[in-house]
């Protein structure tokens, strides 16, 4: 048997520091590590879910994957090929596309939908006018919108419709990988279900690889094959989604799952102490979660755990005292 194919998209040790450097007078400025040593991979045709609360660095990672931001350290690989050093977004955009959280803000208010959708076809694929026209109809049909909408402006659409258009734009470049940053968070629940269903269908029909970023555990669970949980800029747990959801190994993943409200569950388990993140300008030397962790021991505060090799089910965890 030959070696398994490389992941469609992979992050290796991605680190992004904001600020930092030195001021004019040579004084060292504090830098904030928005993402630190993040490694994850999405295999062809599968969906990688990335969950975490605000400030965990999940959006920073998503932007680096799509080439919207350059990592301070680390690499992004597409089909095993390191594309980090390539300048220019356009080349990467042919292979990785991105869907934003706020669908209305991601569409230029002064352009028609036709202009917005034609841009990637013309600029990235060099398609001629007849080819573009045919493809436009296909795209609109694929995301379930009428072709008559093409000549309207973004303000005439609801949030759900706008997000369909944004997905159509991502598809227009014919990229095989789509990174979605909180694509349904701005939508109402009934519309959210429509968009999730659409994404599942498109993934199956077009063989897309999705990286799905969200804070909503239930949403991620319905769409993900694999999962990465982030806390304070690092991946604390990663593995097959089913395995992690069924029996989390990291105490933070466990806390997240217990905190999520579920219809029909009357009592939520809540931490007693403050649920605050450490100061990003003065990160603790050990595990960032240690201050909140009910299982923490002195070693957790002193020494940072790395992601382990993973158990039988492939779930890897960065914890000195994992739950299993």
């Amino acid at each position, binding site marked *: 048997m030959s070696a398994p194919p490389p992941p469609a998209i992979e992050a290796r040790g991605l680190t992004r520091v904001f600020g930092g450097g030195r001021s004019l007078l040579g004084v060292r400025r504090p830098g904030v590590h928005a993402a630190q040593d993040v490694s994850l991979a999405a295999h062809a045709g599968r969906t990688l879910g990335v969950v975490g609360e605000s400030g965990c660095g999940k959006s920073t990672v998503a932007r680096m994957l799509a080439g*919207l931001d350059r990592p301070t350290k680390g690499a992004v690989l597409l089909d095993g090929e390191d594309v980090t050093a390539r300048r220019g977004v356009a080349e990467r955009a042919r292979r990785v596309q*991105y869907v*934003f959280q706020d669908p209305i803000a*991601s569409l*230029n208010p002064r352009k028609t939908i036709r202009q917005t959708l034609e841009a990637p076809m013309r600029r990235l694929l060099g398609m001629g006018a007849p080819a573009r026209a045919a493809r436009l109809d296909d795209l609109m049909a694929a995301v379930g919108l009428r072709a008559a909408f093409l000549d309207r402006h973004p303000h005439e659409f609801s949030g759900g419709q706008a997000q369909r258009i944004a997905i159509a734009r991502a598809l227009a470049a014919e990229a095989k990988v789509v990174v979605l940053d909180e694509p349904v968070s701005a939508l109402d*629940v009934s519309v959210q*279900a429509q968009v999730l269903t659409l994404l599942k269908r498109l993934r199956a029909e077009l063989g897309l690889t999705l990286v799905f970023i969200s804070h909503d555990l239930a949403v991620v669970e319905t769409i993900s094959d694999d999962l990465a949980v982030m806390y304070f800029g690092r991946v604390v747990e990663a593995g097959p989604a089913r395995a992690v959801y069924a029996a989390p190994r990291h105490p933070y993943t466990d806390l997240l799952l217990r905190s999520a409200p*579920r*219809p029909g569950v009357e009592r939520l388990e809540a931490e007693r102490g403050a*649920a605050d993140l450490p100061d990003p300008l003065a990160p603790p030397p050990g595990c960032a979660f240690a201050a909140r962790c009910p299982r923490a021991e002195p070693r957790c505060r002193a020494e940072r755990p790395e992601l382990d090799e993973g158990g039988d089910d492939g779930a890897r965890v960065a914890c000195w005292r994992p739950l299993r």
Partner: protein
Amino acid sequence: MSGLRAAMAQLARNRLAAVGLALCAAIALVALAAPLLPLPDPNATAPADRLLRPGAPGHPLGTDHLGRDILSRLVWGARVSIAVGLSATAIAAAAGSLIGLVAGYAGGRVDGALMRAIDVVMAFPYILLALGVVAVLGPGLMNALFAIAVVNVPFFARTIRGVTLGLSRREFVEAARLSGASHATILFSEVAPNVAPVIVVTMSTTVGWMILETAGLSFLGLGAQPPQADLGAMLGEGRGLLFTAPHVSVIPGVVIFALVMSINLLGDGVRDALDPRLKAGALAAPGAATAVRRSGAGEPAKGEGLAVSGLVTEFASGGRSLRALDGVDFAVAPGERLALVGESGSGKSVAALSLTRLVPSPPGAITAGRVDFAGEDLLAAAPERLRRLRGDRVAYIFQDPLTTLHPLFTVGAQVAEALRAHAPLGRKAAREKAAELLEMVRIPAARRRLDAYPHELSGGMRQRACIAMALANDPALLIADEPTTALDVTVQAQVLDLMRGLAEARGTAVLFITHDFGVVSALCDRVAVMYAGRIVESGPTAQVLADPAHPYTAGLIACVPVLGRPDRALAAIEGLPPAPDALPPGCPFAPRCPHVEARCEAARPPLAPVGEGRAAACVKPLAGAA
């Protein structure tokens, strides 16, 4: 383009702007037609006819100290002033906008360098810089024009840079990058069209000012040089004759004033028409209580709790009236916790705000229904009575604690204020009580946090402070409008746990607004589901969740993913809720309902009992059909 047409229509509706436009056009027309008009040569001197008063034969506005015809000089002078003002504006706008666009889009070092240079230019008091430029170049009309343009470049550059900076961080710019657009393409074809209205507004509001300033330089003798005259130079020349022949200086002043005033009127109109913030009528400041315009008060409700019946709240928008609430009925008994569940636009927040008339008014108004609280009709209460109720018997918690707390006052001061608004407490006593309240909501180091400003606290701590503020006077009813939506899930769990514990311990009734059935389960005994401004179902939480009666409730439950059940098919509700200005005559959910029949579309079904303690507004409820 439709946007442009709407802006023109708005401009036409503005009466003051229309006056400005008419006056401005009249002056411009006369100035343009100067060579065609039967006027004497403006520079022809006639010493014999000097200083004639207005009304003199052949000189309707009199003559100046050299016997030149003032009317003719005015017309020709206005021509010069307008031309100079417009040219200066165009130059300043072009140069400033370009700098602003580049600086705002490029950001980083380019932005830093350009803006520091602009800062230095702006460090000169306005006219002084113009004087300096004229001092170097020497007096003269073109030099004055250039000087005025130069001193206005920073103003344009800063304004445009600010707007560009905001736009450049918008997602659509990044989306354009992912569509393969180059930086130049993005700047000039994605960003610039969105900046254009701001440039037009800035030009229209500054052109009057520039005309005034060039006239000013000419008045000082530094602009137009004799014998050529613009309006300012005429005024300057006449100044020495103030005591003997005031008309020589007063008349040009009147023309400058009329010209600048008309341009400013027009400019304000253009601004109002193009500024999106003003377009939505959003700049209207709401009053202290929502306007109530109802024809009859209806029957008072009995009981100690809250009873709402037939409540209708409308919003005026562009001459139309949008019904946010279309006849809402519900009740909260003392100590009961009711959840009001719905999607955005369902009217749940408006319902919460309508209870103590906190809906912004204008544009909102309550047009029908009753709100009874402890036997009192709140919609008939006097403003002072409402004020005494709010924060005392009925308290609120809102969604985003960062915007709902006042950023410039300490947390302690804001909690103390809630106390002092309702009880004769001294400063020290109020502070002491505030510290106790912060401890009650389990804020660590509560006493030290009294002097913290809201931005110094985390989101969860801020929301705890809001809860402390709301519970300060031990209210009988706590109204919470999506208080955990802006919070992270672990913090949300803590806040829900806290609210539940406090409400249970104090017997506080809670009206909890949310879109999340999971949150409802965690906190509330009963639930009311809203759709298109109406309650479509109500009942005990567990029963409604397990066995929904209204098809909308069923759909809403089915379309939300549930943790631990990833394989459950998500049954999306197709279509969209009806627009509030186009509510159908029948059931508002009928167009999306999988069980729709002809009678559903004929008349709106009333909220009718479906079993013990439950009600649904449906002609054939799915469950509990008694």
